[in-house]
């Protein structure tokens, strides 16, 4: 870790189910989160699956 105090923000690369969960957990524990996604919308591969899709919610 650097000598100066750390920065209270985290970059999450990828807006699929994994990236969204990481981002939500961090935001809920007091960190500013940048979530970046290469496509126009988050959701990732899971959004393509039929069934197993209860909420569609990213709550960002």
């Amino acid at each position, binding site marked *: 870790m650097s000598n100066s105090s750390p920065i209270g923000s985290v970059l999450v690369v990828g807006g699929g189910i994994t990236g969204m969960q990481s981002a939500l957990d961090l935001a809920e524990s007091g960190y500013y989160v940048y979530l970046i996604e290469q496509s*126009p919308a988050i959701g990732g591969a899971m959004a393509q699956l039929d069934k197993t899709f209860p909420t569609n919610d990213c709550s960002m």
Partner: protein
Amino acid sequence: MITLSKVTSITGEEGNFTVTVKKYPRYVDMDACIACGTCAEKCPAKVVDEFNEGLAKRKAIYVPYAQAVPLKYAIDRDNCIYFQKGRCRACEKFCPTKAIRFDDVETDITLQVGSVILTAGFTPFNPAKFDNYQHARFPNVVTSMEFERILSAGGPFAGHVKRLSDGVEPKKIAWLQCVGSRDMNRCDNPYCSSVCCMYAIKESVIAKEHLGKDFQPTIFYMDMRTHGKDFEKYYDRAREEGVRFIRSRVHTITEVDASGTLNLAYVSDTGKRVEEEFDMVVLSVGMEPAQSGIDAANILGIELNPYRFVKTADTSPVSTSRKGIYVAGSLQGCKDIPQSVVEASAAACQASVSLSSARGTLVRDKIFPAELHVAADTPRIGVFVCNCGINIGGIADVPAVAAYAKTLPHVAYVEEDLFACSQDTQEKMVDVIKKEKLNRIVVAACTPRTHEPLFQETIRNAGLNAYLFEMANIRNQCTWVHSQEKDKATAKAKDLVRMAISRASLLEPIPDLSVPVSKTALVIGGGIAGMTAALSLANQGFSATIVEKSGILGGAALDVLHTWKGEDVPSYLNDLIRDVSANSNITVLLNAEVIDASGFVGNFETKVRRNDSIQTILHGATIIATGGKAARVDEYGYGKNPRITRWHDLENNPEMLADANSVVFIQCVGSRDENRPYCSRICCTTSMMQAIAIREKSPDTSVFILYRDIRTFGERELLYKKARELGVVFIQYSLDKKPVVTETPDGLLVDVFDPVLQQPLQIQADLVNLATAIESAPNEDIAGFYKLPLNAEKFFMEAHAKLRPVDFASDGIFVCGLAHYPKPIDESIAQAMAAAGRAATVLSKTAISVSPLVSKVDTGKCIGCGLCAEVCPFGAIILEDADGKGYRAKNISASCKGCGLCAASCPQKAIEMLHFKDEQILAAVCAAGR
């Protein structure tokens, strides 16, 4: 949230990174776009729809799918007629909010961050390049991802399963497993993709639901790998429902006629060549790391493994080779959704450990103006009727609806808006509320499920309580579904507005509700999972107490020598125990047992008995890590002969192997049978490692593994490959022809039926090692104290099998390790970190806001019958002794989810459900009929 973006560079170190991100133009102003869809309707360019796997068309201006977040259109520059040919701009012309920006440009953004988490995911294997699968040539050969879209109600055929060649409903479909996995001859992906067996079963079962009982699904497989929690039961049920499973690899696919029916040639398990016709073939394609993830990994400077997944160690499963950069999900290795979600929370936990001193420095709570006291005032209702562009106004007569609203009681103000949700209307709404002194607001527009929070925030900005608000859903449930009956849509819109106004006039302000949080965690169980969870919390500055039943820390891992990647477990465990014992934030209670518990999120109270004394511990979060153990069985003569051992006995007593000429491993001992209908997940890999070690040390010792399906999932498949190369003999057996072990004067004799040779075999064995089932700890008491559900095998049941794998339905309690399901050490550590990360979301707050929509008990009317406590699914109502008057119901607001079951069931009408009081609901009901 930044979409259409890629990381382009990174400098700095853990705690202080500078990252540049390139943001590609969307050509649509996100603030102005209201996702009405007019642009896409008018856009003349038809483009292959990648979301539907190319099975449908979309336009050049599009949203990827109906529920996309953000729900904003984007222009696909490569397919836009204006960008390619210089003319068109139809979208710009028709956009009602002037949101199109053809002059939008690429921008570079610089971000200062303390940690980075990489979660770029996987790409499905593309089978088109291999002619044996015929995916490119035959229309009725589809990939599993294409089949997901075919099954989906939101897909290209609206959920109607049909063949691509002629649109006919298929009667027979074959799934071919391991396409792009476990294959070194063609695709060079030697690993198992872990998820395909399960999704193939799911697709076949759902296809059967769609197509009826005459539909015949068949799955061609090498080993069925249903090693996840409750997966084996799903596999059993699929067989009962008529899914046919054939252990064979199809070698040739041909088309038999012009309609596209396919002929599959394969060799049956008895060695016969078979040909069979199918209407469709689904290729169960495997996973490869996403190229975008590999690119990002290279830019971030982190190491990849030989298969281009991000390299990690078993004992630090989400840490990459660069400090401060973490990985989660399928970019680290093939895995399913729950394991990805576990790693996501684990990575969030690890990312915040090094930043804990900066927690809360960059986030701010929004401050609202002080609330006006309007509860006692006569209602002055403001009604805002939205046109939603033409979505509502194009069908219902909005001026007529607004005029009608003006005639209703208590309505003080009515206006029509083009878009009620737009930024400028929101600002105007605040002004109007103040100027007209409105004290109840009704917005007639879209659905409260998406827009209620936005409007609630707006009225709070005007000094009104958020619950003095009601929506009339005149778009989703009116104009969109009655677009051919304009008069009836208008009449219904009037009714819905009348119902909303009637209810609004009775709404009451409800104050915010929050509960204080005790910033300490109780961890039940002192194995690897429990210790990792406690340490992950302690390193973030929270205190934790570990309650361990036995006299030592370590749990089930005390017997284990190596992780599957070969890392040394005893030295890792020593370090972990040392770190836990030395950490001043952690209290370890050995020989201790939980004997009772009460409370709720932020405020648990647990009684622990240690020796003869009992202490009460107050804690804000609870982590269940009670572990599991290998079952002792009496099958195969275990316990009667010292040469018959189980699990790690041979590894831990290497002298037993010294003069052994022949060792037999028997798999699935007590797993996957009637008593324990689940797979213990780790046994195949463990036996594989032991077999390899024996053959490497003494190549003259014969090693046999008798198995039902080899389940070396993910890159563990490489161990299976190595064992085969080292000459380990694998013999498959079935449940109805189990091996038989008999004692002889010179050792042991194992009888087994060899399905390849189609005859019985007899093996002379010096040692027989049994991979017995992994059982849960006796969890009933703990489950009872905290009111947590167990599955049939006494493992704890998480809140949601896919999306909430470490949570319970009750807030503030989390599960990890073998208490959840049998799993290897790397997964236990990840889940423990995830549990700690989830617990940190509770412990990092001084108070937790909970929804104030809770039930209220009138103790004057309550007769203490207890029906409410009985029906409450969340344990949110308890009975309290009311001095000498018997029992009275009491609501625990922090646990209440606001369902209102208690209010509906109370025979005394002593319970009111706030915001959904009887008279409030009845106001809407009575207004409906008029």
